[in-house]
């Protein structure tokens, strides 16, 4: 909201420079977001918080200025202009359908006005606060709105048929063309002002074009009313409108200002547009009392930690318009002014006291924290997971949780059990993603376009699905995508490691080992390159993007490999307490077996055989090398198995081990047709 320095001076005897005033206002909670000197005046743009509709006017701000600077407040004393005797005066009827929707409606009729442009001073002030000048009468209603904070509306009386005003809900399919020349359809949820036949305004929001004050207007009906804030809000939301009037009605207007504003506007109309004030009619009544609150002074210190003296408390409250009576020692009964409907409880008073005392005067202290550690948050270990991945050379990315259905279908993801957004602003926000991979793949495609030739990225984030019962579920997932050749600079020169599923398996294994995850396995389940199992449960998969997907993502001549797994499952399976295994007391004997087997020989079974035959002697074994290429027949693979034989209670001898190891070799020959190298 904008107010000007000179306009404020109409109501408060300012002795403070505009710049200093801006600072004071900001530190009192009326944040001045800009202060500009324009045409000999200063325009303050103030951000008014939604709890303080009483600040949405020059008078409201002036009242606050007086309280925080000690300036004297000069509120206008208003006397009703006397009613002129007009010949052939027709009475005017106001009817309110439901007093809850409109507790009070007043109308003043001014005849024989001369519609003309506004005088320079009026136009200037309106322009400074960002309001376009229309004509004298309309400008006056706007001027008083800014000055008093109470919205007014002027109708062309001759266009109100049968001299009547009805405040009622809209009827189904009823239409009104509003002053912005838009035809709008109203309904039962929208409050309208109507004449005998049709709506002439949307109550508290916008006027109708048919009854607006134009150059031909002779007689004016000036409306000042109170409308239900909720109804105004719903109405303007439904019509997709915002207006200065609705903004104030929604937040709650000061009922005591209504008549004052109406009289002020009448005065100005008589002064600037001539005319005769001939009739005043009203319907309904309003509550104008503020709330009473018992203030226990001890509470002020308990909440603020500041020692605000009783004298200061009294002065502050009375400067802000509150009245105070002592009830008991240290207890006041405080009555809020009518324009402070936001003040309903002790904490509201404390806020006022602390605000005016000044936050800057409250000395900082540190609480004696007695925290109860709450464990079990995924984040406890998420940092570890992410750092392991970073250590393995992956870059973390953060992509949007909302995706377009197009992206999902481009990536071949079914949208069957996904959750849609009811009110997306764009197609990019249609669906809560059920998998991280499409976003990661798109991110990868973006980086390929930036001429990156090796990309290894990951994200940890929630994925969202609908359970079969229709309840939404969110689970923390890890997604990784790899593409391109990883450059490995070695002493012997540059080697390039092509991305593939084995890199992803290696990453997953490193992660599982570091987190001490037991019982994981990678199996070919015929769907994915590899399903990742924990026990018997599939918790993730290693996949490659299909040709069509690559095409749709505009990824050319590259393969993209993906891993996705449930972090929730992984973190739950993490062994949090490690146990120490005593170091071996006796030396072991290491033996390697190098074999050549068919490319499709079942490696899992080979390993199982080795383990079975090695029995209790075999302490550790692993595949320490695998190779295909020169010197190995086509369609075959060479494998080196490193076996460590060791016993816990004595030193093994070569003589004991040789037959066991020979048996292992024999078994591999026999069962898998392995030839020894």
């Amino acid at each position, binding site marked *: 909201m904008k107010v000007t320095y000179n306009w404020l001076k109409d109501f408060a005897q300012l002795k403070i420079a505009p710049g200093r005033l801006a600072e004071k206002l900001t530190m009192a909670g009326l944040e001045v977001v800009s202060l500009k000197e324009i045409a000999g005046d200063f325009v303050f743009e103030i951000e008014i918080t939604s709890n303080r509709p009483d600040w949405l006017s020059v008078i409201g701000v002036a009242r606050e200025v007086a309280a925080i600077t000690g300036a004297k407040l000069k509120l206008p004393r208003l006397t009703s202009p006397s009613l002129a005797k007009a010949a052939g005066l027709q009475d005017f009827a106001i009817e309110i359908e439901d007093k809850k929707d409109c507790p009070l409606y007043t109308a003043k009729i001014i005849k024989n006005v001369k519609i003309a442009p506004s005088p320079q001073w009026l136009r200037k002030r309106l322009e400074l606060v960002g309001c376009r000048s229309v004509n004298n009468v309309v400008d006056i209603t706007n001027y008083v709105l800014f000055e008093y904070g109470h919205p007014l509306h002027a109708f062309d009386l001759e266009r109100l048929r049968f001299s009547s005003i009805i405040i009622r809900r809209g009827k189904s399919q009823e239409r009104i063309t509003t002053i912005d020349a838009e035809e709008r359809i109203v309904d039962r949820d929208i409050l309208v002002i109507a004449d005998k036949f049709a709506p002439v305004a949307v109550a508290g929001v916008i006027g109708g074009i048919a009854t607006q004050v134009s150059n031909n207007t002779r007689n004016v009906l000036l409306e000042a009313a109170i409308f239900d804030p909720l109804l105004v809000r719903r109405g303007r939301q439904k019509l997709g409108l915002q207006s200065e009037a609705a903004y104030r009605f929604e937040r709650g207007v000061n009922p005591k200002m209504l008549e004052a504003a109406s009289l002020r506007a009448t005065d100005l109309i008589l002064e600037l547009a001539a005319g005769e004030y001939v009739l005043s009619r009203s319907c309904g009544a309003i509550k104008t009392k503020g709330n009473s609150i018992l203030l226990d002074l001890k509470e002020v210190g308990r909440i603020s930690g500041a020692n605000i003296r009783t004298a200061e408390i009294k002065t502050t409250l009375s400067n802000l318009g509150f009245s105070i009576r002592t009830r008991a020692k240290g207890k006041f009964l405080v009555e809020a002014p009518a324009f402070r409907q936001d003040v309903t409880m002790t904490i509201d008073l404390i806020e006022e006291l602390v605000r005016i005392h000044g936050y800057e005067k409250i000395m900082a202290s540190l609480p004696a924290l007695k925290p109860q550690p709450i464990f079990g948050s995924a984040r406890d270990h998420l940092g570890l997971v992410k750092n392991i991945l970073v250590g393995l050379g992956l870059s973390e990315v*953060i992509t949007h949780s909302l995706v377009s259905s197009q992206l999902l279908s481009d990536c071949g993801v079914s949208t069957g059990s996904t959750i*849609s957004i009811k009110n997306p602003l764009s197609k990019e926000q249609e669906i809560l993603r059920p998998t991280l991979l499409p976003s990661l793949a798109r991110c990868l495609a*973006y980086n390929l376009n930036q001429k990156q030739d090796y990309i290894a990225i990951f994200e940890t984030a929630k994925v969202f699905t609908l359970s079969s019962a229709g309840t939404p579920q969110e689970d923390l997932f890890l997604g990784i995508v790899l593409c391109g050749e990883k450059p490995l600079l070695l002493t012997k020169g540059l080697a390039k490691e092509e991305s593939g599923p084995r890199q992803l398996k290696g990453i997953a294994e490193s992660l599982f080992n570091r987190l001490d995850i037991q019982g994981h396995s990678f199996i070919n389940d015929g769907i994915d390159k590899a399903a990742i199992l924990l026990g018997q449960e599939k918790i993730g998969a290693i996949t490659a993007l299909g040709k069509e997907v690559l095409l749709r993502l505009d990824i050319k001549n590259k393969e993209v490999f993906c891993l996705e797994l449930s972090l929730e499952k992984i973190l739950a399976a993490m062994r949090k307490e490690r146990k120490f295994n005593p170091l071996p007391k006796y030396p072991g004997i290491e033996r390697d077996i190098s074999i050549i087997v068919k490319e499709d020989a079942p490696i899992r079974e080979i390993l199982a055989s080795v383990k079975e035959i090695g029995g209790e002697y075999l302490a550790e074994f692993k595949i320490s090398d695998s190779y295909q290429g020169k010197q190995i027949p086509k369609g075959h693979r060479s494998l080196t198995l490193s076996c460590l034989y060791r016993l816990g209670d004595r030193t093994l001898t070569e003589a004991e081990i040789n037959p066991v190891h020979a048996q292992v070799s024999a078994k591999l020959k026999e069962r898998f047709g392995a030839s020894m190298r």
Partner: protein
Amino acid sequence: MDIELIKKEAESKIESVNSLDSLEELRFKYLGRKGVLAELTGSIPSLPVAQRADVGRQVNALKEGLNKLIETKRASLSGPLARESSRGSAEIDLPGLAQGLGQLHPISQVMDRVCEIFMRMGFTVIEGPEIETEHNNFTGLNIPLEHPSRDAFDTFYLELKAQLLLRSHTSPVQIRAMKKNKPPLAAVVPGRVYRPDATDASHSYMFHQIEGFVVDENIRFSDLKGVLEVFAKAVFGSDIKMRFRPHFFPFTEPSAEVDISCIICKGKGCSVCGRKGWLEILGSGMIHPNVFRNVGYDPKKYTGFAFGMGIERIAMLKYGIDDIRLFFENDLRFLKQF
């Protein structure tokens, strides 16, 4: 043979040697079984009797001296500053050999840093779901469903029978944590939040927040100031100035917005701070008694404070990033800078 001459020659050769292999060669030449010194020792019996003892002592002294010198040299050649002639001095100018590390996203780095600062003060980190109820996101927090105070919280709703939404702030976790636990409580809540905003350089429909709250007997506004001062100085440096400005949030009262002196212009006024000299970094306040009532806490017994901030905002200020979209574009050239 002149022992002095041999000594000088040997010493200078050992001095100038620059590889372990050549040093070993020298050792062999002088101290080996058939080396120069062995030859000298072998020649002693052929000397006149009167000289034998003297020459013997000199040879022994030389032997000891050279041994020491060689050992010292060996240590210097094989120590941490070892130099080997077989590789030229250009070696060290070549790139180091290591598997490259990746990096955490700048948002994660800032989030971790913020969490850590609060954890060191005794806060616990907790998290909550991103799909929320209207109660936890709004009404429980004293935000009426139809009220202008909700305008600041435009919200994505889900296409489901139940009235569920994507949380528009991390504050619903306050409600969850307080319902589940009794005071004292001191926690921070990091996470993703969602608001239907049109995307531009300073708006994103998804961003990250961190929320913090403390509830106990005797928690006061002054404590809020103290904790947030520690935080802001830890993140932005101890020379920043701070100010607490009255503001309105439905779930706290009194409420404050917190500004720090502009870290770009040091408070003089620049384009980043909109010539104000101050940068708003977070919202905070004393937890509203209605919020306590909604979770079954007695507001007469307990008080507390809460605060919340946007991590993107903190990261943008900290790193001098001028477009929020960079965080979600994930250009590796951007990410690798952090």
